[in-house]
């Protein structure tokens, strides 16, 4: 452990002192990102930006094709029109060779076609809804779609003796709804009996009616697809309403955030969630990432930051292999990606989704922190 942190410190120190001459071989390569930096959903975009910027420092210390990458991050304010305007500005004026983002699946449905029309590769780091990469041949994503993660989590729940399940989801955002569709299909496929399906709004704070109804049905597990804020609220209220250890809570991708522990505290204990990454993941690459992220931002990275961090490295790697900062060549190089980052080994399918699911681990909440779930 000590050696690792020493190593991380050494890496950080070297990076800080890296001679700028190393990377100066020509004009910087323009790359764009579109994230939510203002408004109520800004937490996601700012986490992603922090991950991107950390990776950018490392990439630029090495240099890409002897040049640096100049990253322009544009705000979408979670607004479709502003996201499109940002994409058009990045492509038309800044002449970016690739775009990372946008934050929400809904935004990608609007922005993806714009990038695709101009043949600029666009890589979503947090867009997990179904149908994203079907927008066109230039649309990629590095976030595992829910359909690869949820079956693993539900299989673990089943191994723990779960036979009946109640499903809860936020019905007003694409991410949660798409996750729920996957959850329902996976539960049916796993042979679990679905006792109830209850929805709520993603800005709701009261879930007592739905939870009281579910409690009367006594399911073995409650599976929730929503972003971390409502999931925390559901868990807190579930404990108030008397849900105990006999009910297993299962989360979707949205629950995989250190904020769950911060908001819900011990109420979240026992929750299972599948993820290709978690903050305590015990490999040197991840430990170095977490240490550097903490040093730079003063807090733990979440999944959004980790995905963004890997994505920036994957893109830099593709530009290097493409041999030229040209969008079409970068696209072809992206398809050939063989990268190993903090999320584990990474390749794309021919459909431009992440290929490997071997990195998925099932995590459990304990004492407000995620750890690998006991069998």
């Amino acid at each position, binding site marked *: 452990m000590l050696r690792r942190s020493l190593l991380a410190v050494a890496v950080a120190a070297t990076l800080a002192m890296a001679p700028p001459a190393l990377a100066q071989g020509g004009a910087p390569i323009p790359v764009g990102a579109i994230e939510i930096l203002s408004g109520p959903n800004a937490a996601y975009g700012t986490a992603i930006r922090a991950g991107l910027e950390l990776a950018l420092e490392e990439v630029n210390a090495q240099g890409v094709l002897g040049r640096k990458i100049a990253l322009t991050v544009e705000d979408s304010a979670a607004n479709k029109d502003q996201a499109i305007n940002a994409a058009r500005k990045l492509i038309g004026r800044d002449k970016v060779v690739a775009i990372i983002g946008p934050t929400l699946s809904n935004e990608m449905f609007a922005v993806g076609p714009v990038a695709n029309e101009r043949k600029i590769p666009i890589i979503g780091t947090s867009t997990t809804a179904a149908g994203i990469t079907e927008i066109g041949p230039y649309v990629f994503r590095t976030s595992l779609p829910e359909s690869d993660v949820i079956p693993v989590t539900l299989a673990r729940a089943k191994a723990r003796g779960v036979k009946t399940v109640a499903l809860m989801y936020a019905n007003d955002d694409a991410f949660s709804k798409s996750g729920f569709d996957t959850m329902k299909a996976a539960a049916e496929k796993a042979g679990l009996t679905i006792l109830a399906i209850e929805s709520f709004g993603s800005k709701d704070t009261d879930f007592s009616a739905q939870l009281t109804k579910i409690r009367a049905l006594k399911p073995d597990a409650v599976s929730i697809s929503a972003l971390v804020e409502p999931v*925390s609220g559901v868990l807190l209220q579930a404990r108030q309403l008397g849900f105990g250890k006999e009910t297993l809570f299962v989360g979707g991708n949205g629950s995989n955030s250190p904020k769950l522990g911060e908001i819900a505290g011990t109420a979240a204990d026992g929750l299972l969630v599948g993820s290709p990454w978690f903050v305590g993941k015990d490999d040197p690459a991840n430990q170095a990432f977490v240490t550097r992220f903490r040093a730079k931002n003063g807090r733990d990275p979440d999944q959004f930051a980790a995905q963004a961090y890997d994505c920036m490295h994957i893109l830099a790697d593709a530009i290097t292999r493409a041999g030229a900062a040209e969008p079409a060549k970068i696209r072809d190089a992206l398809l050939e990606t063989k990268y190993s980052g903090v999320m584990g080994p990474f390749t794309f399918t021919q459909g431009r989704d992440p290929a490997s699911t071997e990195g998925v681990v099932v995590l459990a909440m304990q004492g407000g922190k995620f750890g690998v779930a006991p069998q």
Partner: protein
Amino acid sequence: MLAQQLVNGVLLGAVYALFALGFTLMFGVLRVINLTYGFYFSAGALLALWMARQGAPIWLALPLAALGAGCVAVVLDWVLLTRLRRIQAPELSSLMVTLGGVLALYSALTSWLGPDIRRLPPDLVAADAFHIGEVRVTAAQLLILGATTLLVAALLALMRGTRLGLAIRAMAEKPDAAQLMGIDTGRAAALVSFISGCLAGAGGVLIGLNFNAIHPYMGEAMMLRGFVVIIVGGLGDIRGALLAGLALGVIEVMTAGYVSSGLKEAVAFLILVAVLWTRPSGLFGRAVLRRA
């Protein structure tokens, strides 16, 4: 299950009523669609959070945060609305100025504090649930219920039993006449802003405590339901806000519990539309007031 659902409904209704008390007062007396109300709610909660982190107990943090939110309300009212009142600007420009104001305020608060959800220290109020038969209620929920009752009683006493209340009611009825009768309407307006701000702040603390989620936009999320409650209850009608809040809470919970949770949100607005179509000035409203 029915008993628990009824309790759930009453508690949610108390939350709605608590939010609506100051809102209906501000709306009914000052006759302005003031969108900054939700901001006082957030401000109160964030102030209490800050004090609780300095180690203040809840009985100290709650009133101080409420007073702080009241002061914020007076300042904002002065900055945004005094000039418009003086030049007797069209009433809709007041709506517009508060719209610009909340956009700036929420965004400033978010870029200052970050958009994350925070929670109050977990031991601020005991988290245990009380059992009454098979029904469970938490301390925070009882606190909300008690505070709502207390605030309604205090407000009614103020409005009915004091000279100040008389002045405020006179202003709500006919501002020009009130001024002619020697009421300093400027001071009364500031006072109403202060009281509404305090009520909003107290609501923010209690509701933040109950749902354990405090963030800059928490007031914004309550505004739409707040409108439903004060319109159904009748503008400026404190008892109406209480009754409409409770009714809305119970109906929403019953809909989610026994019909479909997908309809929970829609039902509030269906009721609103149905009430207005049959009673154009709200369920408890008296006459059609011509106000823009």
